[in-house]
């Protein structure tokens, strides 16, 4: 199966959330990155058929999202975990999954129940399944959210901040699950946790002001910071022309890791990480915005 976005634009009264996005994805896990307000959630809502684009075309397999039949067909192949997960607090986890399974059109009761039991095991929720959702912690709710994504064996999976609220062990388990799904499905993972992308996504797309500013191998994004990542020794303050990636206490003061186009005087070059590459890319995108329109201020 293939997901194709062709010149997709979404205009809201407040501005353009998605701007002329073209993207083609095949099976595999792709990370969707971008700062807050970059248009990630809007783009995902368009792909799920919840929002209609103002312009452009979206196709999933042979189905076109512009038609009602196409949207219904795509929703039948879809597993979606929204960022704001609104579960019914008066249902148990098991009942919630059964309800979503019904709404997903899994009419065969026996098959639906078998899937639910299997998924509860896979997300480690079997022991909590008969409790009302109102008694769940944020992490348990997230796990039910992840289980509902997989109901109906979807071929297109879109997850928005799936590991928010999960503890490190749960996150690792989820990353492994996501990786195993990507072998024969399209999986789009939107997150701010770059470690999740580094671990799970061979490819990544970065949105900035509604536009795709990078789409390619995850390693390629890391390479965007090659020759631009430096560590400043203790006692040397970072200048205005660099972005501070982190600061750590060291003997004699604070040691800064920075990304910038020029090597600071006392800076020691180091190998970049995905985080460095992401920051370098956004720096470059913002500089490009400024050159195109001096009125645009950096986020």
């Amino acid at each position, binding site marked *: 199966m293939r997901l194709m976005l062709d010149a997709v634009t979404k205009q*809201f009264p407040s501005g353009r959330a998605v701007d002329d996005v073209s993207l083609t994805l095949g099976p595999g896990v792709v990370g969707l990155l971008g700062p807050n307000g970059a248009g990630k959630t809007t783009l995902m809502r368009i792909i799920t058929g919840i929002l209609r684009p103002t312009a452009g075309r979206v196709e999933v397999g042979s189905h076109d999202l512009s038609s009602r039949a196409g949207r219904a067909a795509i929703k039948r192949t879809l597993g*979606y975990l929204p960022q704001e997960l609104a579960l019914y607090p*008066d249902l148990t986890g098991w009942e919630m999954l*059964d309800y979503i399974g019904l709404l997903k059109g899994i009419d065969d009761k026996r098959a639906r129940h078998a899937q639910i039991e299997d998924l509860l095991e896979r997300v480690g929720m079997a022991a909590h399944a008969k409790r009302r959702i109102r008694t769940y912690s944020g992490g348990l709710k997230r796990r039910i959210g992840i289980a509902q994504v997989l109901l109906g064996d979807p071929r297109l999976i879109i997850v928005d901040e799936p590991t928010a609220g999960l503890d490190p062990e749960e996150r690792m388990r989820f990353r492994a699950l996501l990786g195993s799904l990507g072998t024969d499905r399209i999986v789009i993972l939107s997150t701010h946790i770059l470690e999740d992308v580094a671990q799970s996504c061979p490819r990544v797309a970065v949105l900035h002001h509604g536009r795709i500013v990078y789409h390619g191998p995850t390693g390629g994004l890391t390479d965007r910071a090659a020759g631009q990542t430096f560590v400043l020794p203790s006692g040397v303050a970072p200048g205005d022309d660099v972005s501070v990636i982190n600061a750590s206490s060291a003997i004699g003061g604070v040691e800064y890791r920075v990304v910038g186009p020029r090597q600071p005087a006392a800076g020691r070059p180091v190998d970049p990480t995905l985080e460095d590459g992401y920051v370098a890319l956004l720096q470059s995108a913002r500089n490009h915005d400024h050159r195109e329109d001096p009125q645009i201020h950096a986020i």
Partner: protein
Amino acid sequence: MGSATATLPGAVRYEALIAVRQRLLWVVLAPMAALIALVAVSSPAAGDADSASAGVAVTALGLSAFYTMGVGVALSDCLARHRAGGDLLEATPTAPTVRLLGAVGGPLAVALVPAGAVLLLVGTIRALVDASPDPIGAAAVALLTIVAPGALALTALAVVLGLWLPVVFARIAVVLTWGWATLLTPGLLPVPTVTGTILSPLGGYPAVTWLGAPSTWADRGETGPLRLAADDGAALLNLGATLLIGLALLALARLLLSEAGSRIRKEDQTR
């Protein structure tokens, strides 16, 4: 995979289950049902009715006037709560109309259970007194032609108001509107009203025509163009109008729900 006829019963079942587990529904409805049952079995007026069926009909009219008000109050936020399901439900292939019917139909079915129980109790007592099963049949007819259609119409109005207004204001508007449409006669207050006409959702015409309730329950002793003589045609018109009002309001709710959804998504985007 996934037809509306297969999905709707499941949606109704789960929305009913959610309603069953909500305390407010029972806090509002259980005392009202108990009070109406008590009045029905102890009131000499009910015993003096022309027939056992008429006694059941008068109880049904009492339920329709007062208990239905409680149903509207309790369910006024049920679509607003359903809307909170947001993208999770929107991303499923089930049509929004099917989801709406589940979200309204399930809680309404639950809310009608105590009313049905009151009618069954009254019908059973009358059946034992009269040594005839007819009052039990009359209870079923009363539930289907008097209480349920009115409850559908008021619940539909309540969910529309619940989508439009803060829930407290919606509940106040529900009580005022129902009182105006079912209780407020020109004799009580000289204002235009549908009470006593074939547009009133109280169910007076079916009660008078099919169950033998006193004729004043149909036109409320007034005359006017929509205050017809109680007969089968008028009863059918009254029942049809009530159902039509309910369905029209549900269609409006469907429209509001999709508009509200797109407004929320726009607001999300601006955050």
